[in-house]
């Protein structure tokens, strides 16, 4: 199948970007990134600079890949990362636009590669349980309801790719932050620090320059792991409760 690509090229964050046209001969069994491999192979054979894009596991779990495909983060298939998208989702002769995540807090590094270290700093601000190695009690000392643990797992499945930010008209990082807050806050081990954690992480999120949440739900719709927007509601409740009800505040 013949695919016409309009790919975002940008030398670095200070340069102006533009869309570049390419045509690729693809196979319907190829993944989207393998189609990009073919493109890059041909660019290299013409001694041109290949398109920089981020990827690693290619099985939808590391959160590296990040392409906005025809305006949608990770493309048209729901619950799917760019690396898991296959060319059979497209038709022979299609024109496909490919762009990077766009958000102030995610500056472009080159072409489709952006800097997502803001996410690391949000986790560093409180996205953990304070337990040193060796301090743990027996793993079965606290029984946890199967459902409760499953709910924590639903939130913990976030891969930190940033599609939620890219999808949001305000480039908000609420879903990412709320998923971690919900994961840890749902486990009994994480309850003790819950209040402080919510406050610190929300504060860091604001510092990084992510926008406000205006409940459009685009984050949930584009999340490749289908993380639920109810996590945001939970975080909001905890946040409001903590600011009003707690003496501790950051």
């Amino acid at each position, binding site marked *: 199948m013949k695919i016409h690509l309009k790919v975002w090229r940008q030398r670095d964050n200070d340069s102006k970007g533009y869309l570049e046209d390419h045509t690729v001969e693809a*196979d319907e*069994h190829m*993944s989207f*990134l*393998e189609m990009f*491999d*073919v493109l890059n*192979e041909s660019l*290299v*054979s013409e*001694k*041109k600079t*290949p398109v*920089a894009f981020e*990827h*690693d*596991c*290619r*099985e939808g*779990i*590391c*959160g590296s890949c990040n392409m906005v495909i025809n305006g949608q983060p990770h493309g048209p298939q729901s619950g*799917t990362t760019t690396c*898991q998208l*296959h060319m*059979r989702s497209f038709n022979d002769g299609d024109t496909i636009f490919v762009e990077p995540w766009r958000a102030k807090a995610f500056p472009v*590094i*080159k072409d489709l590669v952006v*800097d*997502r*270290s803001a*996410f*690391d700093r949000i*986790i*560093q601000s409180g*996205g*953990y*349980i*304070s*337990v*040193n*190695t*060796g301090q*743990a*009690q*027996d*793993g*079965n000392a606290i*029984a*946890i309801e*199967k459902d409760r*643990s*499953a709910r924590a*797992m639903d939130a*913990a*499945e976030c891969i*930190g790719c940033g599609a939620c930010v890219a999808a949001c008209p305000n480039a908000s990082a609420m879903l990412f932050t709320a998923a971690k807050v919900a*994961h840890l806050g749902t*486990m009994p*081990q994480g309850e003790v620090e819950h209040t402080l954690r919510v406050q610190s992480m929300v504060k860091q999120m604001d510092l990084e320059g992510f926008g406000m949440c205006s409940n459009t739900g685009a984050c949930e719709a584009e999340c490749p792991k289908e993380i639920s927007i109810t996590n945001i509601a939970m975080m909001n409740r905890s946040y409001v409760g903590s600011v009003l009800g707690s003496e501790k505040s950051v």
Partner: protein
Amino acid sequence: MELKSNTPEGPLATKWEKYRGTMNLVAPNNKRRIEVIVVGTGLAGASAAATMGELGYNVKCFTFHDSPRRAHSIAAQGGINAAKNYQNDGDSVYRLFYDTVKGGDYRSRESNVHRLAEVSRNIIDQCVAQGVPFAREYGGLLANRSFGGVQVSRTFYARGQTGQQLLLGAYQALSRQISLGNVEMYNRHEMLDLVKIDGKARGIIARNLLTGKLERFAAHSVVLATGGYGNVFYLSTNAMGSNVTAAWRAVKKGALMANPCYTQIHPTCIPVSGEYQSKLTLMSESLRNDGRVWVPNKVEDAQAIQRGEKTALDIPEEERDYYLERRYPAFGNLVPRDVASRAAKVACDEGKGVSKTGLAVFLDFAAAIQRYGKSSAISKGIQNPSEDKIIELGEAVIKEKYGNLFQMYEKITADNPYKTPMKIYPAVHYTMGGMWVDYHLETNIPGLFCLGEANFSDHGANRLGASALMQGLADGYFVIPYTIGTFLSKEIRTPKIDPDAPEFMEAEKATQANLDRLINIKGNQSVESFHRRLGKIMWEYCGMSRNAEGLKKGRQMIRDLRAEFYNDVFVPGEVGEFNPELEKAGRVADFLELGEVMMMDALDRNESCGGHFREEYATPEGEAKRNDEDYAYVAAWEWDETEPRVHKEQLEFKDIELKTRSYK
């Protein structure tokens, strides 16, 4: 060179306890002055850096990824072993130790493996305390499942994303230490050289991948936790970025590469579909708990399937060969990976493969769906359920257990595995070989330690499922924080190491020259094309089965390919910029040397053991024939451009009797 394992004296079961009780410690005020570099943020690196930060050392941690959380460990699916015996099914530290040594075909070091089994229990406790949402029973206690090669249920898991959840736990612990200022984190930095001063490891040269500039980092000690080198085969289940460079550059500075030929070929991966393929996808071994492996009895049926004229459903029960159940009745579909992989190869070599390429076997869930459907109907009180109802209920159970794996399979192949059996084939998955380390996890270079998949230490010639996660976290959380103290306690008077010392300047210059050399070749072939060709040579001559003639030929082919690479590779762009092609070029250059040593190692080992199967050394039934008399040693290779040399560590088995490994 004499290789000393430095295993403490005394009975096996108390060695580790005694070691910890009597080793020299570093006092807290001294720890604050001591610097440690950790390269890698997978399970091994992140847990090590976090724990050493907690202890008060000054840690600098490096990853070439954009975030520590992206390390390849994130992709592990199935689970992590621990000798908790929560199921009361006869598990114990000794049994886990025994299974691991036996599973490794008696080619690992007893003392290291026993320690691993001991600390396995602490790992689960630690991870639970970090908030890892492990799977649970209805009573709220931790759930287990079984993995290949064992007869107990000791595998803990978090759906099909165990590696992700464990890594996030370690990443969060690391993030906490970063926020406390105990660990300085360097993302997008690739270690390209090891710096030695007076014979000791004192730092690294790393390239800042954003700017392309080299930077020098000094410390009292260096820990490598840089993962495995399966990508030397080009196609593997490893993440695209996994590579051998950090370890290999250390080898070029005098460290040794142990048992490089021990490669694990995983039996259940999605088969190759075309030339453009960039990587292979694993279908977790946990599927063999419920999936039955088979091929048609008759070659004609297989051919009809290959041509697309028949499907699995057209082959009646009596025309199917459930070859694992037939050949290995005691373990059936749960035989260890090396055995399952070779059996699949045998079936396909006989012409019974079930895909267009003839390189696939079926993994069938129909029987499990029936079984679960019926028991589910009973527990729901449904009388005389219809066939459809049984299937519906059975599929629901399967979905709960393996939903995300089935979904992944369907996304990749566009086939529905609930309705027709999966097609699977073996693929390169894990490397048991790695840097030679002693009991302290210290290499032969004083002050240089190696953890996780990057070292060779615990899995012998074959790793059991769910044991890599266990080893990575054992090394990082519970072993290195102690054993590094033995080295560092002798360094408390050593002042801060100077990154401007001549040794650093020289190493930087040499690394720069290396990068310049690659970019200036300006040939005509892409880095990728060399990597792909190398992978084909490795798979053909050093893959699932090997023979002397092929290994000699393969070695020569790699040497030729390497020469061609340095003559004709094309690397676009410049050194001093963000340049992923240049990163890849350096990694492929190292694979082109490692590959040669793998061939030599496989040739040196005139026996079959675990993942290393030499066609010349097999029983009449095609099982591996080990030679304990002559080959119960670790082969540790010293690099030399013209003729790499092997050094040997004799393995001693005091607590386990060497037996022919049988799963029949």
